[in-house]
């Protein structure tokens, strides 16, 4: 078990291996389908991107948030299915220097290639463990692109010991999903 702290250096990321379990402390930025589309569209068009995305940890998550006394609180925040973001994944990773993607279910080979090139890993959060992860959020630092709706907005979260997270795709091309898929027994 390892403790990771943001900002993550390329070196620290490249040392991680598929199968490692880690806990993460620091800042993560949420983003799903709509956030990906807008971030790439704005970046291609030279429009400003909210601060915080550059060199960040991208968390595929559409949380439940409530506003209490003018402050946001995280009620539930588990990972969403990452493969929906496969198409824009490589561009997101390279353009914004994303060091780690947190999600569930894994991503495509092309995303894996981009991770190898740029020095990025895929961290599998335990799907559906929304309350545990919400409890690890100590502060909501920002709410950007709120017009996309609660689930699709870009939330900047400060987390403490978020996890367990499993390194499921590493920067050397190692993938737990591939290992499992190759060995699946499909008997009926």
């Amino acid at each position, binding site marked *: 078990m390892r403790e990771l702290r943001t900002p993550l250096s390329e070196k620290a990321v490249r040392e991680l291996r598929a*199968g490692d*379990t880690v806990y993460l402390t620091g800042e993560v930025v949420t983003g799903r389908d*709509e956030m990906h589309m807008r971030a790439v569209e704005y970046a291609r068009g030279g429009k400003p991107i909210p601060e915080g995305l550059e060199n960040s940890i991208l968390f595929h*998550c*559409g*949380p*439940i948030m*409530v506003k209490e006394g003018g402050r946001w609180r995280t*009620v*539930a*925040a*588990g990972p*969403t*299915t990452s*493969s929906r973001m496969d198409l824009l994944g490589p561009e997101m990773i390279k353009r914004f220097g994303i060091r780690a993607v947190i999600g*569930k*279910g*894994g991503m495509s080979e092309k995303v894996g290639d981009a991770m190898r090139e740029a020095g990025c890993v895929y961290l*599998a959060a*335990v*799907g*559906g*463990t*929304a*309350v*545990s992860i*919400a*409890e690890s959020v100590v502060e909501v630092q920002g709410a950007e692109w709120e017009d996309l*709706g*609660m*689930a699709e907005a870009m939330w900047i979260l400060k987390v403490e010991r978020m996890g*367990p997270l*499993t390194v*499921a795709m590493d920067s050397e091309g190692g993938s*737990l*999903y591939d*290992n*499992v*898929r190759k*060995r*699946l*027994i*499909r*008997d*009926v």
Partner: protein
Amino acid sequence: MIKLPEPIDRVVANLLKAANTKLPPDIGWALEAAAGWESDPLARTQLGAIMDNVKKAEVLGRPMCQDTGIPTFYVKGRFDASIRNDIIKGIRAATETVPLRPNTVDPLTRKNLGDNLGEGMPSIHYIPTDDNFLEIAVLIKGAGSENMTRSAMLNPSDGIEGIKRFIVDSVLDAGGRPCPPGVIGVGIGGTADECVAMSKRALMSPLDRENGDPVLKEMEEDLFVKLNGSGLGPMGLGGSTTVLGVKIKAACCHTASLPVAVSIGCWATRRAVARITETGIEYEQGADL
């Protein structure tokens, strides 16, 4: 319509709260049993994190998963046409009070109205009977599992082997996306639309309720063993816990057809049932419909 001890919208809000915050006990037991036999360390970590999360959700009264999904309702017994508006009212209230994540959008503009409602929402199945009670059941599924729904019109000659092949492939191809280990709902026969509806309705049935049809029961047990022997494991990361149960429903079909449908329920297969009589309301977390 029977006389009601509590307005239906309030019952519906109670059901949505209960289903979202409390895992059905049968699924909790199945998870515990799985944690007992699972030997893969990574798989054990996943199961442990799930059970830990379930406990926290119940104690804190919070939704166990951020994807509070889309509810499907089953209304059985005596009721009026007005029940639809009451259910809508209950969803609107629960979205605020539980709270639920606003999930429904226009399919083309993707505009979110923020109340989990909109054209065609929610989906309600009506089963009128002459009994002197009203049963309202709700099944909540998130998109992770709903997006993995598969159906096929097989050839009659594909037979039981073909059906099993389709089910195994559907589950294994879905991989970690529907948050395994979960419950596999299967429909066999009927019309194409009824077949998908059966596969989803099968998920309402508690895991400890035996299938009354010996052939289906054997298929369920066989698929349970095969799927757990596949190696997919919790979250698709490997292990011997891929499913917690398999539930099959069947209906007669056209002589030239063999429809089969698979609805995958994630570990957070959320259900709640209210059985309302003139004297009181009983809440449960599963029912054979």
